[in-house]
C-alpha cells in the first residue's frame, strides 16, 4: 500500500518538474509595439529579503502609475524581475542573463552592498545602465560608467548624525554596530569625521543582526558614559538594541542610520523607539513637496499603514528615473542612449535627489533627519 502511495507521489513530482521547466522556456514576443523591458535584480529571499521586498513594493507602485498613464510613447513598461536570494555571485549571473536579453534597456536592483557591487562590476563589462537602491561605497565605484546609486552615502549619514549631535551639544558618542558592511562603513566615517564636529567616540561595540541580547555590549558602553548612542543596525537587531538600552536604564538620546527607517522599528521597539533620531530619505507623516505625490498614492494603496519607508520610496524612484530617461531618448532605443539619458538625469523624487552629471551618487539633499514621536516619524527638531 505504501508502495502504491509513493508511486503516485513520484508521478506528481515528475509532473511538477515538467511544469516548472515548461514555464521557464522563453515565450515568443511581438517586436513592433512590444513593451520596453527593464530588468530588476532584487534580493527577495535570504537575509536581505526585507529590503528587496520593500523595493519591489515601490517598484510595483511606480510601474502601475506609469503604465496606467500610457507608458512611454505608447509602449508599456515591462519589468523582468529576478530574485538574487541575497547572493552576490548569483546577482552577477542574473545581470549577465538580463544583458543577454537584447530588449532589456536598463537594470535596477541589488539590495545590499555586496550584490550591487557584483552587479556593478558585471554591467560595466556588459555596457548596460544600472540604477541601484544602495549607497556608493568607494572610489572604485565612483569611477564606474554604467552604475548609478540612489541611497545616501555612509559618509553623509555619519556627518548628518554628527551635525545633529553638535547642534544639540552632545560631545561623547557611544556606538553599537552590526558586523556587516553598512555597520563597518558607518563606524569608519564616524571615526573619520567625529573630531570635526567636536565629538569623541568613547565606546564601540559590535553585534550580529540575529543576536538575542545586547545587554553585555550596552553595559560596556554605559560604563563609558556617552552623551548619546548611535545604533548602526538594521531590524530586528536594532530595535532590540533600543529596547535593551532602555531596559538597562540608559536614558541617552539614540540615533540610527537609514537601515532602521520604517514603522517596523516602532512596532518592534514600542516605547523604546520614542525619540530615536534616524537619518532617512523620507518622513512618512511630514512629507517634503517632492514627496507629496508618492505619499498620497501610497496612503491610498495602504490605508491601514499609510507611511512608506525610504526603501519603498527609493524603489518607486528607480522606475520613475528610468522612465524619465527613456522619455528623453529618441527611438529606436539603444542601451547606449538610455545610459546617456540616465547620466544626464536631474531628478528630484520621493526617496532620492540626483544629478548624475556630476557624480554617480545622490546629492546631499537626499537625506532627511526624522524622529519617532508618538508612534510616527516626524522631521527631527
Amino acid at each position: 500500500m505504501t508502495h502504491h502511495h509513493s508511486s503516485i507521489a513520484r508521478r506528481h513530482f515528475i509532473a511538477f518538474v515538467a511544469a516548472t521547466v515548461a514555464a521557464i522556456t522563453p515565450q515568443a514576443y511581438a517586436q513592433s509595439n512590444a513593451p520596453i523591458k527593464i530588468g530588476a535584480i532584487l534580493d527577495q529571499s535570504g537575509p536581505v529579503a526585507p529590503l528587496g521586498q520593500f523595493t519591489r513594493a515601490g517598484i510595483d507602485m511606480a510601474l502601475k502609475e506609469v503604465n496606467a498613464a500610457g507608458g512611454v510613447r505608447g509602449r508599456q513598461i515591462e519589468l523582468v524581475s529576478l530574485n538574487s536570494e541575497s547572493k552576490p555571485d548569483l546577482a552577477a549571473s542574473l545581470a549577465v542573463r538580463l544583458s543577454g536579453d537584447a530588449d532589456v534597456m536598463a537594470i535596477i536592483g541589488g539590495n545590499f552592498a555586496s550584490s550591487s557591487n557584483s552587479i556593478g562590476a558585471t554591467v560595466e563589462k556588459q555596457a548596460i545602465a544600472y540604477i541601484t537602491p544602495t549607497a556608493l561605497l568607494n572610489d572604485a565605484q565612483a569611477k564606474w560608467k554604467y552604475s548609478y546609486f540612489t541611497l545616501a552615502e555612509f559618509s553623509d549619514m555619519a556627518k548628518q548624525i554628527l551635525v545633529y549631535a553638535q547642534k544639540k551639544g552632545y560631545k561623547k558618542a557611544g556606538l553599537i554596530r552590526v558586523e556587516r558592511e553598512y555597520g563597518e562603513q558607518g563606524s569608519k566615517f564616524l571615526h573619520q569625521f567625529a573630531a570635526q564636529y567636536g565629538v569623541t567616540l568613547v565606546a564601540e561595540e559590535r553585534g550580529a543582526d540575529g543576536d538575542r541580547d545586547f545587554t553585555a555590549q550596552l553595559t560596556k558602553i554605559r560604563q563609558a558614559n556617552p552623551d548619546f548612542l548611535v545604533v548602526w543596525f538594521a531590524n530586528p537587531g536594532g530595535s532590540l538594541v533600543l529596547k535593551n538600552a532602555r531596559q538597562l536604564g540608559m536614558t541617552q538620546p539614540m540615533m540610527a542610520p537609514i537601515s532602521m527607517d520604517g514603522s517596523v522599528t516602532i512596532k518592534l521597539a514600542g516605547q523604546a523607539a520614542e525619540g530615536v533620531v534616524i537619518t532617512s530619505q523620507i518622513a512618512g507623516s511630514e512629507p517634503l513637496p517632492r514627496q507629496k505625490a508618492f505619499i498620497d498614492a501610497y496612503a491610498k494603496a495602504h490605508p491601514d499603514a499609510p507611511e512608506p519607508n525610504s526603501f519603498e520610496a527609493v524603489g518607486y524612484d528607480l522606475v520613475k528615473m528610468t522612465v524619465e530617461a527613456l522619455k528623453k531618448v529618441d527611438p529606436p532605443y539603444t542601451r547606449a542612449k538610455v545610459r546617456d539619458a540616465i547620466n544626464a538625469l536631474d531628478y528630484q523624487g520621493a526617496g532620492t535627489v540626483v544629478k548624475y552629471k556630476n557624480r554617480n551618487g545622490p546629492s546631499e539633499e537626499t537625506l532627511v533627519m526624522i524622529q519617532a514621536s508618538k508612534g510616527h516619524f516626524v522631521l527631527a527638531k
Partner: protein
Amino acid sequence: MDLSAALQFVFSGITIGAFYAFVALGVSIVFSSSGIVNFAQGQFVMLGGMVAATLAANAHWPVPVAMLCGVVAAAAGGAVMARLFVLPMLRAGEFPLILVTLGLGVLIEALAVVFWGTDPQMLDSLLKIEPLRVMGATLSSDSITILCVLAIALIAFTQFLRRTRWGRAMRATAIDRDVAASLGINVRAVIVLSFTMAAAFGGLAGALLTPIISTGAQSGFQMTLKAITAAVLGGVASPIGAVAGGLLLGMIEAMSSGYVSSTYQNVIASVVLIVLLFLRPRGLFTALTRQA
C-alpha cells in the same frame, strides 16, 4: 570591572542561553528517540512565534490563547513532518534523513516568507511583571518567564521519560529500535510522538521569545544551527545535556562579549566548541545525564 557589570553579563548569558536551550531541547528530544538530527527544528520555533503573533496582532486574540494556538500549530507541523516525510525515509539511513529535514526546513521557511512576508512580527509579553533589578543589573520580565517555563518544561519532560509508558518507550526506541519493537512498542508512533513533542516545545519557545526579539519568517534556520551547536556542546542525546549546553553557549557568548570583545564573541564560542569537541567528542554532560 565592577560587580554590577559582571552580573549584567551573567543575566545576558542567561537570556541568550535560555533561548538556545529551549530550541536545543527540541533537537535533543528528536535525536534521543530516533537518532535523527532535525535541521527543521528552528522552523517550528518560527511557526509558533509567527502564528501567535499573527493571531494576537491581527485577529486581536488574547496573548495566552494566541500562544497556545502557536504551540498547537507547531505541534501539528511536527506530526505532519514525521508522518509524511520522516517515516517513509526511516530505512534510508542517516545522511538522507538529515537531507530530508534540511529540505523541509527550507520548504517551511520559503512558504512562510510567501505567506507572511519578511517583516518581523511582535507580540505582547505573556506576564507583565516587573523586571528583576539586582545591584544595577537588570533581567527582563520576559527572560524570567522563559527561564521559568524552560525549567517546568524540562522537569515535565524528564518525568515523562522516567515515569510514563510512552516516555519509557521513547527511551527504549532511542537505545535500540528493534528491541523496542520486539517489546510491542510501535516505533513509528514513538517517532511521530517525539517529533510532535519537539515541535510543540519549539512552538512554545517561539511564542515566548517573540515578545523579546520578535520573529521573522526567515529566523528559523539560524536558530536551528545555534540549537544544534548547543545540543552538541552539551550532548545531543540527553535533554538535560542539551539544555545545559544551551545555557553554557549563551554564557560563553555573553562573557566573551563582556570581557574580551564583542567582535570576537562568535570566534570565541566557536573555538571553545571545537576544543570541547576534540576533548569530549560526545558532548560535555552525556555521562552525567544518561538516565534521563
